[in-house]
């Protein structure tokens, strides 16, 4: 039997990974070999497929790295078999049925969300002992907010300065409720400053709001953005829906937290049919939903119809009267 070195064994194992049954045969051969200390001296024999397999088994038996390698390939092959197993969706044993999709990119907003959350966490880690409550959450605001806070009262955190400069004049006026709601929410968090028991909630809310501020900033900076006021049943403007090419933001400070078992659901209604598009989240006094409109999404906010928010059972069902409603552009 000819000997095989580690590099050759490593390559050979990869080559076997797609041969049906080959890895199991090899594993069986390895198992049948005597213990490593009792391996007979290698014989010199003419090369053949059989002797190749025997020498590979011999090497794997004695080489911990190759045994782990073999295990990894066996797991890979088993997972491929699982993935292509025939069922109602009929993958039918062929990988080709799982191919043909395009890569899916993470939403652009996710990066800033993660960055804000990490920054909040890092700030908390670095905070001096004895610091409590929203003092930490407030310091987790992004740099643009910090800059504004330096020239404004601490009790009135400002919005990212970039959004002020980039909002076109026409849109700035209609976007005011959106911006005001965000400022109110951040201000509300600051009032929690001394309530240490709510630190975790406040920290999460602060991270969510900083992420939201980033999204609002991005939406309003997009020249093609739209802003639609959302009105309550009495006709008063109580919230804002804004969207750009990629992002959608709904915000209101008019909603109380939903009772147990209920949620505020966002929907688009066309031709009398409501399509659920999202659920409102809460951060401090602000209720919001931040969605994506990139090319993966099927939501369309143009083409008429109405955008609404209603209080619905969290377990499903719907059709309740809207608490907020806005007309979508045709």
């Amino acid at each position, binding site marked *: 039997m000819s000997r095989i070195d580690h590099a050759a064994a490593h390559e050979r194992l990869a080559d076997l990974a797609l041969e049906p049954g080959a890895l199991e045969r090899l594993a069986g051969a390895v198992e049948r070999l005597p213990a490593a200390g009792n391996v007979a001296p290698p014989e010199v024999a003419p090369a053949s497929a059989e002797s190749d397999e025997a020498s590979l088994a011999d090497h794997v038996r004695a080489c911990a790295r190759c045994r782990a390698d073999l295990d990894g390939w066996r797991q*890979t092959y088993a997972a491929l078999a699982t993935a292509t197993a025939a069922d109602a969706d009929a993958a039918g044993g062929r990988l080709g049925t799982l191919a043909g999709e395009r890569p899916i990119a993470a939403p652009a907003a996710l990066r800033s969300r*993660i960055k804000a959350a990490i920054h909040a966490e890092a700030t908390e880690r670095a905070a001096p002992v004895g610091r409590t409550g929203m003092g930490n959450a407030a310091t987790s605001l992004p740099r643009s907010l910090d800059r504004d806070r330096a020239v404004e009262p601490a009790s009135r955190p400002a919005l990212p300065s970039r959004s002020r400069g980039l909002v076109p004049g026409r849109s700035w006026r209609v976007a005011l409720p959106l911006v005001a709601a965000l400022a109110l929410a951040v201000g509300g968090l600051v009032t929690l400053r001394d309530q240490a028991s709510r630190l975790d909630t406040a920290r999460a809310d602060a991270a969510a709001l900083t992420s939201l501020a980033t999204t609002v900033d991005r939406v309003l900076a997009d020249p093609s953005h739209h802003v639609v006021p959302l009105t309550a049943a009495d006709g008063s403007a109580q919230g804002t829906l804004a969207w750009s090419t990629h992002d959608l933001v709904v915000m209101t400070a008019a909603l109380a937290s939903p009772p147990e078992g209920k949620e505020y659901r966002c929907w688009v209604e066309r031709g009398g049919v409501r399509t659920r598009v999202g659920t409102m989240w809460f951060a401090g006094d602000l209720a919001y939903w931040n969605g994506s409109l990139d090319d993966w999404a099927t939501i369309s906010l143009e083409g008429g119809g109405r955008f609404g928010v209603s209080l619905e059972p969290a*377990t499903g069902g719907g059709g309740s009267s809207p608490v907020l409603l806005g007309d979508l552009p045709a």
Partner: protein
Amino acid sequence: MTGRTGDDAVAEMGDAELVARIVSGDEAALMAVYDRHGDALFGIAVRFLADREAASEVVQEVFLSLWQRAARFDPAAGSLLAWLIGITRHRALDRLRAEARRPRLAAPARAGASATDDGPSDEGSLGRGATSIADDEPDPAEEIDRRWSRAVVRSALAEMPDPERRVLLLAYDDGLSQSEIALRLGWPLGTVKSRTRRALATLRERLVLVPGLLEP
């Protein structure tokens, strides 16, 4: 003088070095890991959960876990991507279990339902395909395994360079040997071998779970 910035330097670091910097509290290193692997993790999560927002939340939780527990990463046990995929699986399964505990019984799961084909769920959080571990499933663990494997394989195939995907499909689906693939495609045998190995390595890195994953 070149315009190379500190961020460029971080972006060029190896995964192990980035993890070491994350352990010391370097936020830029964590974002560099996100830039490198975030799309892959999101692609798997969204295919598994069939819900874009839920997938975003899972990926955010994964990176928070990395931030808080990076010191537990063991390069000897597997690559960083494999480790992060394992955490993604944990978090995504947590989501499904939480959803299954809700009283609502949604439509039967469409295992392997394509997120790209179907678009985002219109059922709110964890929509189509998200209830496959409800009590009435005959073998939830098997179903979850299949759905996870499909999500990972579909994601890997989507991200794989076309030549690597072609040799993989010819070998797996048509049972062709590497020599036969070389003849069929007119490529040198060595090229076929290297592309097959790269394709397999991609699948293996994503499919084989790293032992000793951190607990939530």
